[in-house]
Protein backbone atom coordinates (compact mmCIF):
# COMPACT_ATOMS: atom_id res chain seq x y z
CA UNK A 1 0.00 0.00 0.00
CA UNK A 2 1.54 3.22 -1.13
CA UNK A 3 1.68 6.52 0.58
CA UNK A 4 1.06 9.13 -2.06
CA UNK A 5 1.75 12.82 -1.88
CA UNK A 6 -1.10 14.86 -3.33
CA UNK A 7 0.49 17.92 -4.93
CA UNK A 8 -2.77 19.82 -4.58
CA UNK A 9 -3.50 19.11 -0.92
CA UNK A 10 0.18 19.07 -0.04
CA UNK A 11 -0.46 16.01 2.07
CA UNK A 12 0.92 12.49 2.01
CA UNK A 13 -1.86 9.99 2.48
CA UNK A 14 -2.62 6.29 2.18
CA UNK A 15 -3.34 4.74 -1.18
CA UNK A 16 -6.93 4.00 -0.15
CA UNK A 17 -7.77 7.72 -0.48
CA UNK A 18 -6.80 7.68 -4.14
CA UNK A 19 -7.96 6.04 -7.33
CA UNK A 20 -5.68 4.91 -10.05
CA UNK A 21 -6.36 6.74 -13.30
CA UNK A 22 -4.07 4.99 -15.75
CA UNK A 23 -1.30 6.03 -18.07
CA UNK A 24 -0.67 9.77 -18.12
CA UNK A 25 -0.53 12.08 -21.07
CA UNK A 26 -2.32 10.08 -23.72
CA UNK A 27 -3.30 12.78 -26.20
CA UNK A 28 -6.85 12.62 -27.53
CA UNK A 29 -6.77 13.06 -31.32
CA UNK A 30 -7.60 16.68 -32.07
CA UNK A 31 -9.95 15.67 -34.86
CA UNK A 32 -11.31 12.26 -33.99
CA UNK A 33 -13.38 12.16 -37.16
CA UNK A 34 -10.23 12.32 -39.23
CA UNK A 35 -8.48 9.55 -37.32
CA UNK A 36 -8.30 6.19 -39.06
CA UNK A 37 -9.72 3.17 -37.27
CA UNK A 38 -6.19 2.09 -36.42
CA UNK A 39 -5.27 5.52 -35.04
CA UNK A 40 -8.46 5.68 -33.02
CA UNK A 41 -7.99 2.12 -31.79
CA UNK A 42 -4.45 2.96 -30.75
CA UNK A 43 -5.63 5.96 -28.76
CA UNK A 44 -8.48 4.04 -27.17
CA UNK A 45 -6.79 0.82 -26.22
CA UNK A 46 -3.06 0.54 -26.86
CA UNK A 47 -1.01 1.23 -23.76
CA UNK A 48 2.66 1.60 -22.94
CA UNK A 49 2.29 -0.67 -19.92
CA UNK A 50 5.89 0.14 -19.09
CA UNK A 51 8.02 -2.19 -17.05
CA UNK A 52 10.10 0.28 -15.05
CA UNK A 53 9.69 4.02 -14.63
CA UNK A 54 6.23 5.02 -15.68
CA UNK A 55 4.18 8.20 -15.78
CA UNK A 56 0.71 7.59 -14.50
CA UNK A 57 -2.28 9.43 -13.11
CA UNK A 58 -3.86 9.14 -9.71
CA UNK A 59 -6.95 10.93 -8.51
CA UNK A 60 -7.40 12.07 -4.94
CA UNK A 61 -10.96 10.74 -4.91
CA UNK A 62 -11.49 10.87 -1.18
CA UNK A 63 -9.75 14.21 -0.89
CA UNK A 64 -9.58 17.14 -3.30
CA UNK A 65 -10.69 15.02 -6.31
CA UNK A 66 -7.78 16.34 -8.33
CA UNK A 67 -6.02 14.19 -10.87
CA UNK A 68 -2.25 14.45 -10.77
CA UNK A 69 0.84 12.88 -12.27
CA UNK A 70 2.96 10.26 -10.53
CA UNK A 71 6.25 8.88 -11.74
CA UNK A 72 6.51 5.41 -10.33
CA UNK A 73 8.61 2.36 -10.98
CA UNK A 74 6.28 -0.50 -11.86
CA UNK A 75 8.81 -3.12 -10.78
CA UNK A 76 10.22 -1.74 -7.52
CA UNK A 77 7.07 0.36 -6.88
CA UNK A 78 9.31 3.26 -5.88
CA UNK A 79 7.67 6.65 -6.37
CA UNK A 80 10.02 9.27 -7.81
CA UNK A 81 7.61 12.12 -7.28
CA UNK A 82 4.15 13.54 -7.81
CA UNK A 83 3.25 16.67 -9.72
CA UNK A 84 0.22 18.58 -10.88
CA UNK A 85 -0.70 17.46 -14.37
CA UNK A 86 0.72 20.64 -15.87
CA UNK A 87 4.02 20.54 -13.98
CA UNK A 88 4.40 16.82 -14.60
CA UNK A 89 3.80 17.23 -18.30
CA UNK A 90 6.79 19.51 -18.71
CA UNK A 91 9.02 16.96 -17.03
CA UNK A 92 7.44 14.12 -18.93
CA UNK A 93 7.97 15.81 -22.27
CA UNK A 94 11.55 16.63 -21.37
CA UNK A 95 12.17 12.97 -20.51
CA UNK A 96 10.47 11.79 -23.68
CA UNK A 97 12.74 13.97 -25.76
CA UNK A 98 15.86 12.74 -24.02
Amino acid sequence: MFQIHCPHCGATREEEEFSYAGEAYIPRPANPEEATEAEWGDYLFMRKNTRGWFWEQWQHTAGCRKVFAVKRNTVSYEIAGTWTLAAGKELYLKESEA
Partner: protein
Amino acid sequence: MANRYSLWSLLKNGLKHNESWQPAWRSPQAKPRYDVIIVGGGGHGLATAYYLAKNHGVKNVAVLEKGYLGGGNTARNTTIVRSNYLWDEAAQLYEHAMKLWEGLSLDLNFNVMFSQRGVMNLGHTLQDMRDIERRVNANNLNGIDGVVLSPKEIQDIVPLMDISAKTRYPVMGASYQPRGGVARHDAVAWGFARGASELGVDIIEQCEVIDMIIEDGRIKGVKTTKGDIFADRVGCVAAGNSTPLAKMAGVRLPLESHPLQAFVSESMKPCLDTVVMSNAVHGYVSQSDKGELVIGAGIDSYLGYGQRGSPHVIEHTAAAIIELFPSFSRVRMNRQWGGIVDVAPDACPIISKTKVKGLYFNCGWGTGGFKATPGSGYVFAHTIANDEAHPLNKAFALDRFNTGHLIDEHGAAGVAH
Protein backbone atom coordinates in the same frame (compact mmCIF):
# COMPACT_ATOMS: atom_id res chain seq x y z
CA MET B 1 6.60 -43.15 -23.54
CA ALA B 2 9.92 -44.38 -22.30
CA ASN B 3 9.35 -43.34 -18.74
CA ARG B 4 5.67 -44.10 -18.37
CA TYR B 5 4.04 -43.34 -15.03
CA SER B 6 1.72 -45.88 -13.49
CA LEU B 7 1.06 -47.72 -10.28
CA TRP B 8 3.40 -50.35 -11.66
CA SER B 9 6.21 -47.83 -12.20
CA LEU B 10 5.80 -46.65 -8.62
CA LEU B 11 6.10 -50.21 -7.34
CA LYS B 12 9.04 -51.01 -9.57
CA ASN B 13 10.93 -47.85 -8.68
CA GLY B 14 10.00 -48.07 -5.04
CA LEU B 15 11.70 -51.45 -4.83
CA LYS B 16 14.78 -49.83 -6.31
CA HIS B 17 14.79 -47.06 -3.68
CA ASN B 18 13.42 -44.64 -6.28
CA GLU B 19 16.85 -44.31 -7.79
CA SER B 20 15.87 -45.14 -11.34
CA TRP B 21 13.39 -42.38 -12.06
CA GLN B 22 14.29 -40.44 -15.17
CA PRO B 23 14.15 -36.65 -15.63
CA ALA B 24 10.58 -35.53 -16.24
CA TRP B 25 11.82 -33.45 -19.14
CA ARG B 26 15.13 -33.02 -20.92
CA SER B 27 17.19 -29.85 -20.45
CA PRO B 28 19.28 -29.72 -23.60
CA GLN B 29 21.53 -26.95 -24.87
CA ALA B 30 19.66 -24.63 -27.21
CA LYS B 31 20.21 -25.36 -30.90
CA PRO B 32 20.98 -22.41 -33.15
CA ARG B 33 17.77 -22.82 -35.15
CA TYR B 34 14.27 -24.15 -34.64
CA ASP B 35 11.13 -24.25 -36.72
CA VAL B 36 9.21 -22.54 -33.95
CA ILE B 37 10.27 -20.72 -30.80
CA ILE B 38 7.81 -20.34 -27.98
CA VAL B 39 8.72 -17.52 -25.62
CA GLY B 40 7.39 -18.28 -22.17
CA GLY B 41 7.54 -21.59 -20.33
CA GLY B 42 4.33 -21.32 -18.38
CA GLY B 43 1.36 -23.58 -18.78
CA HIS B 44 0.15 -21.89 -21.96
CA GLY B 45 3.55 -21.86 -23.64
CA LEU B 46 4.28 -25.48 -22.78
CA ALA B 47 0.80 -26.50 -23.92
CA THR B 48 1.39 -24.69 -27.20
CA ALA B 49 4.63 -26.59 -27.73
CA TYR B 50 2.96 -29.87 -26.80
CA TYR B 51 0.11 -29.44 -29.25
CA LEU B 52 2.45 -28.15 -31.99
CA ALA B 53 4.31 -31.43 -31.72
CA LYS B 54 1.34 -33.65 -31.11
CA ASN B 55 -1.32 -32.21 -33.42
CA HIS B 56 0.72 -30.55 -36.13
CA GLY B 57 3.87 -32.63 -36.29
CA VAL B 58 5.99 -29.54 -35.61
CA LYS B 59 8.59 -31.01 -33.29
CA ASN B 60 11.63 -28.86 -33.91
CA VAL B 61 10.43 -26.45 -31.27
CA ALA B 62 12.13 -24.59 -28.42
CA VAL B 63 10.39 -23.22 -25.36
CA LEU B 64 12.41 -20.40 -23.83
CA GLU B 65 11.77 -19.59 -20.19
CA LYS B 66 13.56 -16.77 -18.41
CA GLY B 67 13.11 -18.34 -14.96
CA TYR B 68 11.86 -21.78 -14.04
CA LEU B 69 9.03 -23.62 -15.79
CA GLY B 70 5.59 -22.64 -14.67
CA GLY B 71 6.98 -19.97 -12.35
CA GLY B 72 4.73 -17.15 -13.49
CA ASN B 73 0.97 -17.10 -13.22
CA THR B 74 0.84 -20.88 -13.55
CA ALA B 75 2.38 -21.03 -10.10
CA ARG B 76 0.37 -18.16 -8.67
CA ASN B 77 -3.26 -18.66 -9.53
CA THR B 78 -6.12 -20.12 -7.54
CA THR B 79 -6.44 -23.06 -9.97
CA ILE B 80 -10.11 -22.57 -10.83
CA VAL B 81 -11.34 -24.21 -14.02
CA ARG B 82 -14.73 -23.38 -15.51
CA SER B 83 -16.19 -22.64 -18.93
CA ASN B 84 -19.40 -20.81 -18.07
CA TYR B 85 -18.55 -17.65 -19.97
CA LEU B 86 -21.29 -15.43 -21.35
CA TRP B 87 -20.34 -14.60 -24.90
CA ASP B 88 -20.38 -17.33 -27.52
CA GLU B 89 -16.79 -16.75 -28.58
CA ALA B 90 -15.42 -16.98 -25.05
CA ALA B 91 -17.72 -19.80 -24.01
CA GLN B 92 -16.69 -21.98 -26.93
CA LEU B 93 -13.01 -21.38 -26.37
CA TYR B 94 -13.20 -22.14 -22.65
CA GLU B 95 -15.48 -25.12 -23.23
CA HIS B 96 -12.95 -26.54 -25.65
CA ALA B 97 -10.39 -26.16 -22.90
CA MET B 98 -12.75 -27.86 -20.46
CA LYS B 99 -13.07 -30.86 -22.73
CA LEU B 100 -9.30 -31.09 -22.96
CA TRP B 101 -9.04 -30.83 -19.16
CA GLU B 102 -11.38 -33.79 -18.85
CA GLY B 103 -8.91 -36.04 -20.64
CA LEU B 104 -5.69 -34.28 -19.79
CA SER B 105 -4.23 -36.54 -17.11
CA LEU B 106 -4.54 -39.60 -19.33
CA ASP B 107 -3.36 -37.72 -22.41
CA LEU B 108 -0.25 -36.45 -20.63
CA ASN B 109 0.26 -39.56 -18.47
CA PHE B 110 0.61 -37.07 -15.65
CA ASN B 111 -2.10 -36.64 -13.08
CA VAL B 112 -2.94 -32.93 -13.09
CA MET B 113 -5.47 -33.69 -10.35
CA PHE B 114 -8.32 -32.09 -12.26
CA SER B 115 -11.08 -32.15 -9.75
CA GLN B 116 -14.58 -31.41 -11.01
CA ARG B 117 -16.04 -30.37 -7.70
CA GLY B 118 -18.23 -27.66 -9.24
CA VAL B 119 -17.99 -23.90 -9.44
CA MET B 120 -20.59 -21.62 -7.94
CA ASN B 121 -20.97 -17.96 -8.87
CA LEU B 122 -23.09 -16.20 -6.28
CA GLY B 123 -25.66 -13.51 -6.96
CA HIS B 124 -26.39 -10.89 -4.33
CA THR B 125 -28.64 -8.42 -6.13
CA LEU B 126 -31.56 -8.65 -8.53
CA GLN B 127 -29.24 -7.54 -11.32
CA ASP B 128 -26.71 -10.24 -10.36
CA MET B 129 -29.52 -12.75 -10.72
CA ARG B 130 -30.56 -11.40 -14.12
CA ASP B 131 -26.95 -11.71 -15.26
CA ILE B 132 -26.76 -15.23 -13.88
CA GLU B 133 -29.95 -16.26 -15.66
CA ARG B 134 -28.69 -14.80 -18.89
CA ARG B 135 -25.35 -16.54 -18.60
CA VAL B 136 -26.69 -19.93 -17.60
CA ASN B 137 -29.23 -19.92 -20.43
CA ALA B 138 -26.54 -18.92 -22.89
CA ASN B 139 -24.24 -21.62 -21.52
CA ASN B 140 -26.88 -24.32 -21.86
CA LEU B 141 -27.58 -23.33 -25.46
CA ASN B 142 -23.84 -23.48 -26.09
CA GLY B 143 -23.75 -27.02 -24.74
CA ILE B 144 -22.15 -26.01 -21.43
CA ASP B 145 -23.54 -27.41 -18.22
CA GLY B 146 -24.96 -25.02 -15.68
CA VAL B 147 -27.92 -24.49 -13.45
CA VAL B 148 -29.30 -21.68 -11.33
CA LEU B 149 -29.42 -22.55 -7.64
CA SER B 150 -31.68 -21.14 -4.96
CA PRO B 151 -30.17 -20.15 -1.62
CA LYS B 152 -31.52 -23.38 -0.15
CA GLU B 153 -29.84 -25.45 -2.83
CA ILE B 154 -26.62 -23.52 -2.25
CA GLN B 155 -26.80 -24.31 1.44
CA ASP B 156 -27.11 -28.03 0.70
CA ILE B 157 -23.84 -27.94 -1.22
CA VAL B 158 -22.02 -25.42 1.00
CA PRO B 159 -23.31 -25.83 4.55
CA LEU B 160 -20.96 -23.27 6.09
CA MET B 161 -22.14 -20.40 3.92
CA ASP B 162 -24.35 -17.76 5.51
CA ILE B 163 -27.41 -17.52 3.28
CA SER B 164 -29.49 -15.61 5.80
CA ALA B 165 -31.14 -12.32 4.88
CA LYS B 166 -29.30 -10.46 7.63
CA THR B 167 -26.01 -10.24 5.79
CA ARG B 168 -25.01 -7.01 4.08
CA TYR B 169 -25.35 -8.58 0.63
CA PRO B 170 -27.64 -11.55 1.11
CA VAL B 171 -27.09 -14.50 -1.19
CA MET B 172 -30.02 -14.58 -3.62
CA GLY B 173 -28.89 -17.47 -5.75
CA ALA B 174 -26.02 -18.75 -7.80
CA SER B 175 -25.02 -20.20 -11.09
CA TYR B 176 -23.45 -23.60 -10.71
CA GLN B 177 -21.31 -25.45 -13.19
CA PRO B 178 -20.81 -29.00 -11.88
CA ARG B 179 -18.07 -29.75 -14.42
CA GLY B 180 -16.03 -26.81 -13.16
CA GLY B 181 -13.46 -27.28 -10.47
CA VAL B 182 -9.79 -26.99 -9.72
CA ALA B 183 -6.55 -28.60 -10.85
CA ARG B 184 -3.03 -28.87 -9.49
CA HIS B 185 -1.40 -25.86 -11.11
CA ASP B 186 2.26 -26.91 -11.03
CA ALA B 187 1.41 -30.33 -12.37
CA VAL B 188 -0.10 -28.76 -15.47
CA ALA B 189 3.18 -27.08 -16.37
CA TRP B 190 5.23 -30.15 -15.54
CA GLY B 191 2.88 -32.50 -17.35
CA PHE B 192 2.94 -30.44 -20.52
CA ALA B 193 6.72 -30.01 -20.24
CA ARG B 194 7.20 -33.74 -19.92
CA GLY B 195 4.80 -34.46 -22.77
CA ALA B 196 6.38 -31.86 -25.06
CA SER B 197 9.91 -32.95 -24.23
CA GLU B 198 9.00 -36.56 -24.97
CA LEU B 199 7.81 -35.46 -28.43
CA GLY B 200 11.11 -33.71 -29.14
CA VAL B 201 10.52 -30.17 -27.92
CA ASP B 202 13.59 -28.51 -26.36
CA ILE B 203 12.86 -26.77 -23.08
CA ILE B 204 15.43 -24.14 -22.22
CA GLU B 205 15.12 -22.69 -18.72
CA GLN B 206 16.95 -19.62 -17.40
CA CYS B 207 16.97 -18.18 -20.93
CA GLU B 208 15.56 -14.69 -21.24
CA VAL B 209 14.65 -13.11 -24.55
CA ILE B 210 16.25 -9.68 -24.72
CA ASP B 211 15.44 -8.70 -28.29
CA MET B 212 13.75 -9.84 -31.46
CA ILE B 213 15.51 -10.33 -34.75
CA ILE B 214 13.28 -8.91 -37.48
CA GLU B 215 14.12 -8.41 -41.16
CA ASP B 216 11.78 -6.91 -43.75
CA GLY B 217 8.86 -7.13 -41.41
CA ARG B 218 9.45 -10.81 -40.80
CA ILE B 219 10.62 -12.50 -37.62
CA LYS B 220 13.96 -14.28 -37.92
CA GLY B 221 14.66 -15.22 -34.35
CA VAL B 222 15.36 -13.89 -30.89
CA LYS B 223 18.35 -12.65 -28.96
CA THR B 224 18.57 -14.27 -25.57
CA THR B 225 20.78 -14.34 -22.52
CA LYS B 226 22.08 -17.64 -23.96
CA GLY B 227 22.77 -16.22 -27.42
CA ASP B 228 20.83 -15.78 -30.65
CA ILE B 229 18.34 -18.45 -31.56
CA PHE B 230 16.74 -18.44 -34.99
CA ALA B 231 13.30 -19.47 -36.15
CA ASP B 232 10.84 -18.26 -38.78
CA ARG B 233 7.97 -18.45 -36.37
CA VAL B 234 7.92 -17.12 -32.85
CA GLY B 235 4.98 -17.39 -30.50
CA CYS B 236 5.00 -15.23 -27.39
CA VAL B 237 3.07 -16.45 -24.35
CA ALA B 238 4.40 -14.28 -21.58
CA ALA B 239 1.30 -13.07 -19.72
CA GLY B 240 2.18 -9.99 -17.66
CA ASN B 241 5.42 -9.51 -19.52
CA SER B 242 3.85 -9.51 -22.98
CA THR B 243 4.02 -5.75 -23.51
CA PRO B 244 7.78 -5.46 -22.98
CA LEU B 245 8.25 -8.39 -25.39
CA ALA B 246 5.96 -6.85 -27.98
CA LYS B 247 7.83 -3.59 -27.69
CA MET B 248 10.99 -5.36 -28.87
CA ALA B 249 9.13 -6.11 -32.09
CA GLY B 250 7.57 -2.67 -32.36
CA VAL B 251 4.13 -4.07 -31.70
CA ARG B 252 1.69 -2.20 -29.44
CA LEU B 253 -0.68 -4.20 -27.27
CA PRO B 254 -3.85 -3.11 -25.50
CA LEU B 255 -2.73 -4.57 -22.19
CA GLU B 256 -2.20 -3.40 -18.67
CA SER B 257 -0.24 -5.58 -16.25
CA HIS B 258 -1.65 -5.52 -12.75
CA PRO B 259 -0.81 -7.28 -9.51
CA LEU B 260 -3.31 -9.97 -8.55
CA GLN B 261 -3.02 -11.41 -5.07
CA ALA B 262 -4.15 -14.59 -3.43
CA PHE B 263 -3.67 -16.34 -0.12
CA VAL B 264 -4.13 -19.67 1.57
CA SER B 265 -5.22 -20.63 5.03
CA GLU B 266 -3.65 -23.29 7.16
CA SER B 267 -4.56 -26.81 6.23
CA MET B 268 -7.84 -28.09 7.66
CA LYS B 269 -10.08 -31.11 7.34
CA PRO B 270 -12.53 -30.94 4.42
CA CYS B 271 -15.07 -28.16 5.01
CA LEU B 272 -15.74 -26.80 1.54
CA ASP B 273 -16.33 -29.18 -1.33
CA THR B 274 -16.91 -26.77 -4.15
CA VAL B 275 -15.51 -23.56 -5.57
CA VAL B 276 -17.40 -20.48 -4.43
CA MET B 277 -17.03 -17.18 -6.22
CA SER B 278 -18.72 -13.90 -5.49
CA ASN B 279 -18.23 -10.83 -7.56
CA ALA B 280 -20.40 -8.54 -5.48
CA VAL B 281 -18.63 -9.08 -2.18
CA HIS B 282 -15.43 -9.74 -4.07
CA GLY B 283 -13.81 -12.96 -3.09
CA TYR B 284 -13.52 -16.51 -4.22
CA VAL B 285 -12.55 -19.58 -2.30
CA SER B 286 -12.04 -23.30 -2.63
CA GLN B 287 -10.36 -25.91 -0.47
CA SER B 288 -7.35 -27.71 -1.87
CA ASP B 289 -6.79 -31.44 -1.54
CA LYS B 290 -4.17 -30.56 1.06
CA GLY B 291 -6.84 -28.86 3.13
CA GLU B 292 -5.98 -25.19 2.68
CA LEU B 293 -8.60 -22.64 1.78
CA VAL B 294 -7.33 -21.09 -1.44
CA ILE B 295 -8.60 -17.55 -1.72
CA GLY B 296 -8.35 -15.09 -4.56
CA ALA B 297 -8.29 -11.38 -3.87
CA GLY B 298 -9.33 -8.49 -6.06
CA ILE B 299 -7.00 -7.05 -8.63
CA ASP B 300 -4.83 -4.12 -7.58
CA SER B 301 -5.78 -1.01 -9.51
CA TYR B 302 -2.28 0.08 -10.52
CA LEU B 303 0.24 -1.27 -13.00
CA GLY B 304 2.69 -3.56 -11.30
CA TYR B 305 5.31 -6.06 -12.35
CA GLY B 306 6.42 -6.64 -8.76
CA GLN B 307 4.44 -9.82 -8.08
CA ARG B 308 3.03 -8.19 -5.00
CA GLY B 309 0.15 -5.87 -4.28
CA SER B 310 -1.27 -3.74 -1.52
CA PRO B 311 -2.30 -5.25 1.82
CA HIS B 312 -5.66 -3.49 1.99
CA VAL B 313 -6.74 -5.62 -0.95
CA ILE B 314 -6.05 -8.76 1.10
CA GLU B 315 -7.83 -7.25 4.10
CA HIS B 316 -10.92 -6.55 2.01
CA THR B 317 -10.85 -10.06 0.66
CA ALA B 318 -10.64 -11.54 4.15
CA ALA B 319 -13.68 -9.43 5.04
CA ALA B 320 -15.52 -10.73 1.99
CA ILE B 321 -14.79 -14.33 2.90
CA ILE B 322 -16.08 -13.73 6.42
CA GLU B 323 -19.20 -12.11 4.97
CA LEU B 324 -19.86 -15.36 3.10
CA PHE B 325 -18.49 -17.73 5.76
CA PRO B 326 -18.72 -16.10 9.21
CA SER B 327 -17.10 -19.08 10.91
CA PHE B 328 -13.91 -18.67 8.87
CA SER B 329 -13.21 -15.57 10.95
CA ARG B 330 -11.09 -17.72 13.29
CA VAL B 331 -9.24 -19.49 10.48
CA ARG B 332 -5.76 -18.18 9.81
CA MET B 333 -4.00 -17.01 6.67
CA ASN B 334 -0.79 -18.95 6.19
CA ARG B 335 0.69 -17.31 3.14
CA GLN B 336 -0.10 -14.68 0.55
CA TRP B 337 1.43 -14.00 -2.86
CA GLY B 338 0.92 -12.08 -6.05
CA GLY B 339 1.12 -12.56 -9.79
CA ILE B 340 1.12 -10.22 -12.76
CA VAL B 341 -2.04 -10.37 -14.83
CA ASP B 342 -2.22 -8.87 -18.29
CA VAL B 343 -5.66 -7.40 -18.65
CA ALA B 344 -7.21 -6.56 -22.02
CA PRO B 345 -9.89 -3.86 -22.28
CA ASP B 346 -12.66 -6.41 -22.87
CA ALA B 347 -11.34 -8.96 -20.36
CA CYS B 348 -10.78 -11.42 -23.18
CA PRO B 349 -7.54 -12.87 -24.50
CA ILE B 350 -5.60 -11.94 -27.58
CA ILE B 351 -4.54 -14.94 -29.63
CA SER B 352 -3.36 -13.34 -32.78
CA LYS B 353 -0.98 -12.77 -35.62
CA THR B 354 0.79 -9.42 -35.54
CA LYS B 355 2.01 -6.95 -38.13
CA VAL B 356 5.37 -8.78 -37.99
CA LYS B 357 5.11 -11.88 -40.18
CA GLY B 358 5.72 -15.05 -38.26
CA LEU B 359 5.31 -13.38 -34.87
CA TYR B 360 2.29 -14.38 -32.83
CA PHE B 361 1.01 -13.31 -29.47
CA ASN B 362 -1.11 -15.16 -26.97
CA CYS B 363 -1.84 -12.84 -24.05
CA GLY B 364 -4.45 -10.75 -22.30
CA TRP B 365 -5.89 -13.61 -20.27
CA GLY B 366 -6.18 -11.34 -17.30
CA THR B 367 -7.44 -13.24 -14.31
CA GLY B 368 -8.77 -16.13 -16.39
CA GLY B 369 -5.74 -17.79 -17.90
CA PHE B 370 -5.23 -20.96 -15.92
CA LYS B 371 -8.58 -22.49 -16.79
CA ALA B 372 -7.89 -22.03 -20.48
CA THR B 373 -4.40 -23.56 -20.45
CA PRO B 374 -4.95 -26.60 -22.67
CA GLY B 375 -7.41 -24.80 -24.96
CA SER B 376 -5.13 -21.82 -25.30
CA GLY B 377 -2.18 -24.01 -26.26
CA TYR B 378 -4.36 -25.99 -28.64
CA VAL B 379 -5.59 -23.02 -30.68
CA PHE B 380 -2.31 -21.12 -30.49
CA ALA B 381 -0.45 -24.16 -31.83
CA HIS B 382 -2.94 -24.24 -34.68
CA THR B 383 -2.48 -20.52 -35.33
CA ILE B 384 1.30 -20.85 -35.47
CA ALA B 385 1.36 -24.06 -37.49
CA ASN B 386 -1.05 -22.78 -40.12
CA ASP B 387 -0.31 -19.06 -39.92
CA GLU B 388 -4.05 -18.75 -39.51
CA ALA B 389 -6.37 -18.64 -36.56
CA HIS B 390 -8.29 -21.72 -35.50
CA PRO B 391 -12.05 -21.08 -35.78
CA LEU B 392 -12.16 -20.91 -31.98
CA ASN B 393 -9.74 -17.99 -31.75
CA LYS B 394 -10.69 -16.03 -34.86
CA ALA B 395 -12.61 -13.54 -32.77
CA PHE B 396 -9.64 -12.98 -30.47
CA ALA B 397 -7.44 -11.18 -32.98
CA LEU B 398 -5.82 -7.83 -32.32
CA ASP B 399 -7.85 -6.04 -34.98
CA ARG B 400 -10.95 -6.15 -32.82
CA PHE B 401 -9.56 -3.14 -31.00
CA ASN B 402 -9.73 -1.18 -34.24
CA THR B 403 -13.08 -2.36 -35.55
CA GLY B 404 -14.77 -2.23 -32.18
CA HIS B 405 -15.69 -5.91 -32.22
CA LEU B 406 -14.97 -6.36 -28.52
CA ILE B 407 -16.14 -9.41 -26.64
CA ASP B 408 -17.06 -7.67 -23.48
CA GLU B 409 -16.87 -10.28 -20.73
CA HIS B 410 -16.12 -7.38 -18.37
CA GLY B 411 -19.46 -5.70 -18.25
CA ALA B 412 -21.54 -8.69 -19.03
CA ALA B 413 -20.42 -11.81 -17.29
CA GLY B 414 -20.75 -10.55 -13.77
CA VAL B 415 -17.76 -12.67 -12.91
CA ALA B 416 -14.28 -11.47 -13.44
CA HIS B 417 -12.14 -14.43 -12.54
